[in-house]
């Protein structure tokens, strides 16, 4: 059984460097249920550290926690002592006995890699920083890639697109936005990043232009599946016009990919309005 110091160290490493881990803590239980309050277990993709009990509850929480890693979930979940997942307030209140477990995914801040430091790149980066992402911006023109241009925390890289992207570390926690000055650069950038397992790759441009880019790369032999996963044209359809509005549309799409959701107005009136305009 690992002690608290080992758990704390493992969480610090997960938050700083990754890989992501699902941290599970027993936070409560119906009176009479024998569980150790505060017991902790860390569930990685392929192993566990610690445990929160034994038998079916332990197995069920482990399985649930592992499946929560790609969803970036933070949620207090209810299980029966026999390991059955209980969903919804009514079901929880109706159950005879419940164990409450906080499942939280601990991982480094997501990286937002913006290719192109123009007006749209500037706004996308700003909004990403506001959302707590680690922002990196690449451009080959010094006027568009200098620290003064970006009045927020960002790793501004000025250099050759191909070379810089080649050496930029990309993981499933990297979100890439291609908004460079032209399709030649976007194509070059996409060629460099498409097959590297990023959490998101989006490319700006009209349907016609972006289809041409994808066709070129497919003809060159790039992986079809990887190209199919490129979000292009980029962003949610909210009628965005200005660079800042486009940034909202793009980051909205990134949040959708990260958290899941229906990408619809919540209200009936909003949905009515959206469908009327379609």
């Amino acid at each position, binding site marked *: 059984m690992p002690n*608290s*110091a080992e758990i*704390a160290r493992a969480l*610090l490493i997960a*938050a*700083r460097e990754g890989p992501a881990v699902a941290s599970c803590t027993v936070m409560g239980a119906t009176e009479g249920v024998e569980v150790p309050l505060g017991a902790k277990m860390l569930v990685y993709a392929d192993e566990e550290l610690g445990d929160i009990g034994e038998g079916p509850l332990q197995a069920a929480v482990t399985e649930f926690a592992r499946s929560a890693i790609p969803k970036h979930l933070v949620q207090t979940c209810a299980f029966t002592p026999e390991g059955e997942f209980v969903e919804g307030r009514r079901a929880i209140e109706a159950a005879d006995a419940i164990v*409450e477990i*906080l499942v939280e995914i601990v991982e480094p801040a997501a990286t937002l890699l913006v290719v192109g430091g123009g007006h749209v790149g500037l706004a996308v980066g700003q909004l990403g920083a506001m959302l707590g992402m680690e922002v990196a911006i690449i451009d080959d023109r010094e006027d568009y890639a200098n620290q003064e241009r970006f009045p927020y925390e960002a790793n501004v890289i000025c250099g050759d697109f191909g070379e810089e992207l080649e050496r930029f570390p990309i993981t499933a926690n990297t979100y890439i936005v291609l908004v460079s000055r032209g399709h030649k650069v976007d194509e070059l950038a996409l060629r460099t990043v498409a097959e590297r397992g990023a959490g998101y790759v989006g490319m700006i441009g009209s349907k016609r232009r972006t289809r041409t880019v994808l066709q070129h790369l497919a003809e060159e032999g790039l992986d079809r599946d990887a190209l199919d996963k490129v979000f292009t044209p980029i962003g949610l359809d909210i009628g965005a016009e200005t660079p800042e509005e486009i940034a909202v549309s793009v980051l909205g799409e990134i949040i959708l990919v990260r958290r899941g959701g229906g990408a619809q107005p919540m209200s009936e009136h909003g949905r009515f309005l959206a469908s009327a305009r379609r």
Partner: protein
Amino acid sequence: MPHDEVYEAMSSAFDDGAPVALATVAQTLGSTPRKTGAKMLVREDGTFVGTIGGGCGEAEVWQEAMDALEDGDARMVTVDLTEPVDGEDKICGGIMRIFVERLES
């Protein structure tokens, strides 16, 4: 959002052999300043790292954390932000359940 500053403070307290109290938002109902998973770590001298939302709710949780450091018991604290304070309007209007535990290496 990563809580690396909280984990770092925890790790370094354990390196010094000191216990800490950790307050974690377990659940929120309605409009609350922080969401599930928000953390505040309290050291024996009362200093703290991180936040579970500021204001009077946080002061209450800090006191519970100091008590937990003393008696060692894990506890669930309910902070009700729906009550107007001193006749002022409700600011947030939600309820937070916060798990407070003492941890040592």
